[in-house]
C-alpha cells in the first residue's frame, strides 16, 4: 500500500515515481552541496565507519584450480602489490586500500550459511541451543556506542533486499542470518531494505520546520507516557519478562535521545530531495540507491556508522543486468565449473564497482582537512571463502579509508596462517581510538597494519 507512505505537500515536493524509470540516479547528489556549513566546521574530525557485507565468499586461491583463478587476492607483498581482478575498480583508491592474506573466522565455522552474516562482525559463535538470539555485540555497534552518539542516528543498518531467505534462514530461526548487527547479545538489529524508510529514518518526518518541531514535541510526550506505562507494567511481571521489558525501555530511552538530538539536526545546507517511494524493482538501481543513501548520511553527518548487506545471504537474486541470468546462491555452488565461476566473479565485481562509486563520492566531498574518505574506515568483505565448500578460510576482506591518518593503505598484508578475523576487528577499534583488550576470539592486534 504505497499510499500509506507517500508524502504530503504538493507545493515543495513534486512526485517521484517508484518504477525506477523516472529516477535519475544518482539523484541524491542534488541534495548535497559541495561544501556544507557542517563540512567546514570540522574542528574535531568526524570519523565514519562502514561495513559492507557480501555473501557467499569470493573466488580466491582455494578452488581446485588454485592460484590460477584467484580473482581476489593481491599479488606481490607490501606496497608493490597488484589488486586482484575482482578489486580492479578500486585502483583509483589504492592508496586507501589494505588487502589481506590468511584471515579466518572460526566463529562461523560449520554453519554453511546461517551464522555467516551475524558472526562476521562478532567473531563469537552464538549459543544456538538458546531459545532466541544469543551472541554478542558486533563491531559496528561497539563503534556506534563510541562514535555514534554525536548524531541523532548512531548507526544505520541497511540491505538491498529482505534478509529472510529460505536458503539461509529457514528452520529454527533467522537470528543470525538476518543481520550483521547486534546491539547486545540478545539484540539483533533489523536491516532495512525499503529506501523510503531509510530516507525517513535519516531525514526525520515533517515537511516544514514548524511541523518537524511540533512532531518532536508530540513524540517527547508520547515517550514520557511510554516510560510511565512501562514502569507500571513492570511491577506486574515475572523476572524474565521484567528483563524483556527493560530491553524495551532501553530502546525507548535511545529514541528519547534521538528525539532530543533531532531537534538540533541542521539541514539548512542540504537541499532535501523527494523521498524514494519504496523498494525498487530494478535491483541495480536499488543497490546504487542504498549506497547513495549511505553516502548522503555521511555527507550530511546524519550518522557516522553504517552496515550494509549488499545482497542477502542465500539469495536467489539474478543478475541479468550484468549478464548473469543465474541466481546468486545456486551459482555460488560453482562446482569448479569455470563458466559458473566466471559468472560468480561478475557478480562479485559488480558489487565492488558499486562500492568504488561510493568511494568516489566520498573522496570528492571535502570537509576540513581532507575528504570524507580520508576520515573514514571501511571494511568490505564476506564471512565465507570458497562458496563451493562453505569454508571460512581464507576470508576475503579489505580495509579502506584514511581513518583520520590512522590507516595508511596501499599495501597487501600477508598475515600468519589462520589469523583470526577478530584481530582485524580489534585493530579497527584501536585505529578508531577505541581501547579494548579483546574482541570476540581475538588473540592480539595486527601490528603490521
Amino acid at each position, binding site marked *: *500500500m*504505497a*499510499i*500509506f507512505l*507517500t508524502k*504530503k*505537500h*504538493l507545493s515543495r515536493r513534486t512526485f517521484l*515515481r*517508484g*518504477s525506477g524509470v523516472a529516477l535519475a540516479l544518482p539523484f541524491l547528489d542534488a541534495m548535497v552541496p559541495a561544501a556544507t556549513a557542517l563540512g567546514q566546521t570540522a574542528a574535531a574530525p568526524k570519523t565514519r565507519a562502514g561495513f559492507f557485507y557480501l555473501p557467499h565468499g569470493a573466488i580466491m586461491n582455494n578452488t581446485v584450480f588454485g592460484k590460477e583463478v584467484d580473482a581476489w587476492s593481491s599479488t606481490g607483498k607490501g606496497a608493490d602489490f597488484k589488486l586482484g581482478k575482482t578489486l580492479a575498480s578500486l585502483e583509483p583508491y589504492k592508496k586507501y586500500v589494505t588487502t589481506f592474506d590468511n584471515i579466518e573466522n572460526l566463529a562461523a565455522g*560449520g554453519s*554453511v*550459511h*546461517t551464522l555467516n552474516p551475524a558472526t562476521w562482525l562478532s567473531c563469537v559463535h552464538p*549459543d544456538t*541451543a*538458546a531459545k532466541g*538470539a544469543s551472541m554478542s555485540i558486533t563491531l559496528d555497534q561497539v563503534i556506534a556506542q563510541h562514535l555514534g552518539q554525536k548524531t541523532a542516528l548512531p548507526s544505520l543498518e541497511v540491505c538491498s533486499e529482505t534478509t529472510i531467505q*529460505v536458503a*539461509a534462514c*529457514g*528452520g*529454527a*530461526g533467522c537470528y543470525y542470518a538476518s543481520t550483521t548487527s547486534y546491539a547486545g547479545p540478545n*539484540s539483533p538489529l*533489523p*536491516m532495512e531494505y525499503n529506501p523510503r*524508510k531509510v530516507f525517513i529514518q535519516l531525514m526525520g*518526518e515533517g515537511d516544514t520546520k514548524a511541523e518537524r518541531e511540533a512532531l518532536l514535541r*508530540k513524540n517527547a510526550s508520547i515517550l514520557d*507516557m*511510554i516510560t510511565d*506505562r512501562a514502569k507500571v*507494567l513492570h511491577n506486574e*511481571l*515475572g523476572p*524474565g*519478562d521484567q528483563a524483556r521489558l527493560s*530491553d*524495551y525501555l532501553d*530502546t525507548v530511552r535511545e*529514541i528519547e535521545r*534521538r528525539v532530543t538530538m533531532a531537534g538540533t539536526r541542521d539541514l539548512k545546507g542540504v537541499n532535501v530531495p523527494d523521498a*524514494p*517511494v*519504496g*523498494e525498487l524493482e*530494478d535491483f541495480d538501481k536499488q543497490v546504487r540507491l542504498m549506497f547513495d543513501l549511505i553516502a548522503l548520511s555521511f555527507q550530511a553527518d546524519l550518522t557516522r556508522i553504517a552496515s550494509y548487506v549488499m545482497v542477502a545471504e*542465500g539469495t*536467489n537474486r*539474478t543478475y541479468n543486468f550484468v549478464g548473469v*541470468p543465474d*541466481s546468486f546462491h*545456486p551459482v555460488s*555452488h560453482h*562446482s569448479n565449473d569455470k563458466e559458473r565461476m566466471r559468472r560468480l566473479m561478475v557478480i562479485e565485481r559488480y558489487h565492488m564497482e558499486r562500492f568504488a562509486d561510493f568511494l568516489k563520492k566520498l573522496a570528492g566531498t571535502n570537509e576540513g582537512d581532507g575528504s570524507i574518505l580520508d576520515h573514514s574506515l571501511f571494511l568490505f568483505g564476506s564471512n565465507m571463502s570458497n562458496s*563451493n*565448500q562453505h*569454508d571460512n578460510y581464507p576470508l576475503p576482506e579489505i580495509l579502506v579509508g584514511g581513518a583520520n591518518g590512522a590507516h595508511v593503505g596501499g599495501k597487501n598484508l600477508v598475515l600468519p596462517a589462520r589469523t583470526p578475523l577478530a584481530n582485524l576487528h580489534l585493530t579497527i577499534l584501536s585505529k578508531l581510538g577505541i581501547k579494548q583488550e579483546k574482541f570476540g576470539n581475538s588473540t592480539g592486534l595486527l601490528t603490521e597494519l
Partner: protein
Amino acid sequence: MRKSGTGFKYALMSAGACLSLACFALSADAADGQQAVNAGAKVFNDTVTNICEKCHNSTDWAGSLAMDTLDLRSPGQDPDVWEKAVTKLSGRLMPPAGEKQPSQADVDALVGYLETSLDASAKDRGIGHVPLQRLSRTEFAASMKGLLGVDVDPKQVLPTEIEVDGFSNIAGALSTSPTFMEQYLSAVRRVAQRAVGEPVPKMASVFSGGGGGGGGQAGPGSPTQLTHKDGYPLGTRGGVSFTHVFPADGEYRFNFLDGDSIDAGLYPRGMETAATLVILVDGKEVARREIGGPDDLALADRDGPKGRTAIVAKVSGIPVQVTAGSHTVTATFIERSWAQSNDPTGGGLVSGMPIIRDGIQVVGPYTPRGLSLSASRAKIFICEPKQEAEERPCAEKIARHLATQAFRRPVTDADLKWLMKFYESGRAEAGGFDSGVTELITAVLSSPDFLYRAISSPAPGESRPLDDLELASRLSFFLWNQGPDAELLALANKKQLSEPAVLDAQVARMLKDPRAQSLVSDFAFSWLNFGTLDQIDPLDRTFNAGMRANFETEARLFLSSVLLANRSVTDLLTADYTFVNDSLARQYGIPGVLGPQFRKVTLKDENRWGLLGKGALQLRTSYADRTSPVLRGEYVLDRLIGTPPSPPPPGVVTDLSVHEGQPPSTVRQRLEIHRTNPTCRACHGVMDPLGIAMENFDLTGRWRTVDSVSKLPIDPVATLSSGIVLRSPSDLRRYLTRRPDQFPTTVTKRLMMYALNRELEYYDMPQMRKIVRDAAASNYTFASLITGIVNSDAFRRQGPDVKSKKAPDARALKTASLDARDTGATPLRQEQ
C-alpha cells in the same frame, strides 16, 4: 474402544500404520492390545540394539548420544531422546540412507510403541512458558484493520521480523530495536491520522497503482490491459485500481503524469484508435474522457512533446468530489471491438488502442468541506458532540471504548486520566475535537499496554491456568491475528469464557468470522512458505507477475476451501479440485476455462490433486532457472512430513553441475552423486527421491515430460530408502497419506507452534498426539485440531518463567545435539 487404555491406543496406531500389511492388532481386545505392546517392545529393543547402537553407543557417541546408556525397558524415562527419535524415524532420516534399514512395518511399529510409551508416562512432564510478547507487524496490521478500519501493509511500515520455522509470531524472537520503535511510533501516528481524517487537511499529491512500489498492481503496461480484468466493471478493458485514503471531503483531481502512462509517449501507437477512459470511485463512474483517434494521433505525431503534453492534459486534472476515508479508485477503458483497431497483429501489445501503462496521481483536497462519516470514523466516533460541553464526555467515551479493545482488558479511571491528557493537547490544536481524538488514538496505540501482551508466570516449578482475559487474548491472536472483540472481552470479564461450552461456541463463532482468514494468510502461508513467491523470478519469458498472482490466489482459495470450510486437513493433499482462471488453466493444461475470474474446477489428472499439484509449491521450491528436487524433497520432508533434515556437514563439495565438455544431463542425473557419496547420501538419500517424484512439474508448475535444456526425457522414478518406489506426484501423495494420522500430525505441530507463540518441546508431544487422536473421530477437520489445541494444557496453562536457557528438564541438554537444530546449523537448504 478408543478409550480403553494404552494397549488399545497402540493397537489403533498400528492398525493405522500398517494398512497395507498383515496387521497383528486389528481386533479391539485387551489381550491383543497387550500382545501388541509386547511385540512393539520387542521391535524397539531389537532395532535399537541391532541398528541404532551401531553408531549411538558409548564408544562412538554419534550425535553425542549413546543409547546403550539408556533404559530400554521404559522409554518414558528419556522422553527428550525418544521424542527426537520419533521425529527422525517418522521422516526416515534415521538410520541414515545407505545404512541397513528396518522395514517400513518395523518403523511404524516402533514409532507406535515409542509414542504409546511416551504418552503413558507423560504426566506432569512440564508446561511451556510464553514470555512477554510484542505485537508482530502482521498482528499490528490486522489490529489496525480491526480496531480502526485502516488498511496497513506491514512490510511498508515496520522492519522485517525474525521468523522461526517461517512464523513471525514467536514470542522469544520478537525483540524491539530502536529502528522498530522509530518506525512504530511513526506508523501509529499516520494510522491515527488516516482513521480520523484530517480536520485541517494539507494539500497532498499521491501516486498509486504504478508498476514499482505502487499499489501492488501486477499489470499496468502488461498484456492484462488488453482484456477485461477480474473485478472491474463489465464492458471495460484493462485499467488500474487502487485504494486511496482521502483525508477530507472535497474536490480531488486525478492526473496521468506523462504521455507514457497513457500510451501517448514517444511512440504514440495507442493514439491510433479512439477510446473512452472512465474513472470510477468505489465502482461508480465519476468522469469520462475521450482519448486517441485521428486528431490525437496527429497531435502526437506533428507536435512531438508539446502535442503529447496536450493529450495528457486532456485526461489530467479531472476534478471529482470525494468524501473522506478509504475509497477504491479505478481507471479503465470502455471495451470496443478489436475490429476498430487498425493493428490486430503484433501479439496484441501494439494494439493501436491506448492502454494504461502506469499509475495515477491523486491531488487534493481542493476546497475541503470537513469530514463525513467514513468506515473508520464510524468505528471510532461512538458519539458526536453537538456542542462544546459535550466534547469531553464524548472523548472519554471514545477513549474508554477504544482502549478497552486495544489493551484487551477493562480500562480504569487511572488509565483514562493519562489518556485524556493527550486528548486535551490535541483539542487545543486547530483541528479541535478531531485533533484531540487523533492524539488520543496515537497515545493508545503507542502505549506498551497495546504493544505488549503478557501471561502471568506461576511460582517457580509450577504452572497456572490462564485467566479469562489471558485466554481471550491468546485465542483471539491465534484465530484472528488481533486482540479480542467486544463479545469475547465481555465473556472474559464475566469469567465465562473458560467454561467449556462457552469456549467451544466462541471458537465456532470465530472460525466463521472473516477475520479467521488470517489462519490462511498468516498461518498456512507461513507454514507452506507461500508468502514469499516474489523471491523467485523465473527465467521464463512466458512467466509474469500475473501468473505469480494467480498462484497466490489459487493457493489462498484452495487453503480456505479446506481449512475454513472445515474439511479434513488431509484434503490439503488429496482434494481433487482447485481454483483456476483462464491463464492458470492454460498453465495447468485444463481445457475449457474462459475468463479471468477464478472458479472451482474438478481435476481429472490426479497428479494435480492437493498441494503437490499447485504452482505456488512448484515455484517456491525451484530456482530461477530450473527445478530443484533437493529443494522440493526438503520442502516435503520439513513442511509436509514434519522432519526437517540436518544441514550438510561443513567442507562438503557441492559439485553437481555440468562440466565443460560433458554431455548435457538432467538435474536428476547430476544428483546421482548424492547416492554414491555416503556423506551426501545420509540425508539426500531420503530427500532427493521425494523431490524427484515431482520432476514432471517444471518450475512454473507446468507438466513436462522432457527436460527443456538437455532435451532428455524426465525420469521421475525414485526409490525411497525404505525401498518404496515413487513414480509420480500421485505416488508421493499416496506415500504421504499412507498413515492417516501422519499429515494431520504435521499440521497440528505447526498449528500448535503458531497458537502457542513458542517452539514445541518434547513435553508437548504427548498433548499434541492426543489432539490428533481425538481429531480422528471428526476425520481430522481443521476445526477439530483447533478445538483440541484450545483445550490442551499447553494452550490453557502457563509454565514457569525459566530465565536460564536450559530446557525445563536439564537432561535435555545431555542429548541436545541429536537434533541438527541444536548443533547451531539450522536446516540448510543445500543447493540441488
